[in-house]
């Protein structure tokens, strides 16, 4: 795989310069790696800060803006950011109403955000944290690092972002974020491995004619390898894996997410199959989002995320959002 880069060392900084040039509505601190909405801190508004390794764009930097994140901290590719970034972001967005850290459940993200929370509280910032752990491919047990955070991150950031934008208090924004996470489940499938800049070759070897079920978004191999399946068979597998874990009674939000290199044409076709399986299992879909939102560099494949919602969550989902990666209503 060839890359459109200068040198591996500057990939993240180069991207931040490019983001700054394209989006005057963001304040991008390239040196310290913090992306903040220009009008932060917004008086009386809870600040929402997320972050994680780079390579998942538009997550998280593409979700900074009115109605979603206040700031994002991009780490090195597939490497959690450092506490310094998060503390800086928290300070930039805190209006006194406190800050919510939205943390995907990976050891690195958890440890770094934990350290940052302590440091930010030392600076007098009230911090709450919510862990996103929606990936049913990983057994949540004492013998693992717990379920990973993947597609649900978008739901949590969007819905909690809408609540914060309305001026809801920190405890409420936090509990909404937690509820969205608890109501969400994901499952991902890779048709190819991605190539990280540090390594320069695919992170794992996936022969022609095979796919990885239960893939992570960091180039980690999946849970199980199978012979190549059709779009319909993959939809069956992914949706059933989710519905084996949870049985939504209410309508759901559906995210059919591309991992990077899968054409939108295929992703929409996959959506048709996912909707077929959901209909067959009696799950009503309130809203569908199809696209590359939580990616894994140039990995081919897709993930499915369901979030069971009520009227309030649907209202917050539909609320205006104005970011580089997600935009409606304004």
């Amino acid at each position, binding site marked *: 795989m060839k890359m459109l880069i200068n040198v591996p060392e500057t990939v993240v900084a180069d991207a931040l310069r490019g983001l700054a040039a394209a989006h005057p509505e963001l304040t991008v601190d390239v040196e310290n790696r913090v992306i903040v909405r220009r009008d932060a801190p917004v008086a009386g508004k809870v600040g929402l800060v997320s972050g994680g390794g780079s390579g998942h764009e538009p997550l998280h930097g593409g979700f900074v803006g009115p109605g979603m994140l206040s700031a994002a901290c991009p780490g090195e590719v597939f490497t959690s950011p450092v506490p310094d970034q998060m503390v800086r972001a928290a300070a930039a967005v805190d209006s006194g109403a406190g800050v919510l850290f939205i943390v995907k459940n990976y050891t690195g993200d958890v440890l770094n955000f934990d350290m940052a929370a302590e440091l930010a509280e030392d600076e007098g910032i009230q911090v709450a944290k919510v862990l996103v752990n929606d990936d049913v491919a990983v057994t949540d047990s004492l013998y693992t*690092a717990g379920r990973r955070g993947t597609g649900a991150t978008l739901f949590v950031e969007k819905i909690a972002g809408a609540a914060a934008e309305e001026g809801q208090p920190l405890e409420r924004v936090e509990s909404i974020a937690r509820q969205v996470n608890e109501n969400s489940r994901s499952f991902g499938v890779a048709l190819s491995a991605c190539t990280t800049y540090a390594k320069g070759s695919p992170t794992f070897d996936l022969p022609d004619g095979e796919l990885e079920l239960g893939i992570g978004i960091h180039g980690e191999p999946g849970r199980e390898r199978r012979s190549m399946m059709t779009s319909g068979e993959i939809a069956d597998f992914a949706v059933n894996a989710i519905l084996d874990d949870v049985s939504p009674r209410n309508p759901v939000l559906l995210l059919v997410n591309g991992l990077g290199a899968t054409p939108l044409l295929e992703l929409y076709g996959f959506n048709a199959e996912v909707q077929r399986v959901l209909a067959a299992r009696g799950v009503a879909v309130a809203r569908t989002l199809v696209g590359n939102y939580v990616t894994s560099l140039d990995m081919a494949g897709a993930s499915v995320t369901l979030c069971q919602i009520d009227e309030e969550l649907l209202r917050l989902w539909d609320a205006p959002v104005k970011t580089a990666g997600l935009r409606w209503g304004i």
Partner: protein
Amino acid sequence: MLDADFFRRWMTVTAASVEREADRLTDLDSAIGDADHGSNLQRGFRAVAAVLEKEAPDTPGAVLTLAGRRLISTVGGASGPLYGTLLRRTGKALGEDAEVSEARFAEALRAGVDAVMALGGAAPGDKTMIDALLPAVDALGDGFAAARAAAEEGALATTPLQARKGRASYLGERSIGHQDPGATSAALLIAALGESAEADGE
């Protein structure tokens, strides 16, 4: 006795061996993780070497706490806070003395390793850096060479284990048969002790 110079050398020798072994660490991480462990530590220990050069702290404790803070501020990932905590807490345990005995260091390092276990929640046998660090601490009473041998053996012994912590745990049984990258880098860190002491003897 070990002075600030020794600990500075420990860090720069580690930095050099991380530089040398970065590709291997990244390869190990690509088998059961996300292919960044080598570049993570490279970035971190380059920063550590640079800051020690610039600030030249003059006690063993100050050297290690500064190094630990620097790792936390530059590495990210799981290994940043963990190695950062290891050095910071070892440094804190060394206090403000200008020189410390090997026994005192062994004790401090145990405090550091305990802090890593408390932070990351890993126990021995979980296929993490702990599997190299803990045997090394246990053997440190017998000298740096013994600690090195124990750490290297510990790292090798992670191969047949199933990971229970960190990214590799997602693989379940498929993590078996691969050496843990963090245990491997921990063995480099411990090996650097002996080399730093030899350099002292010259």
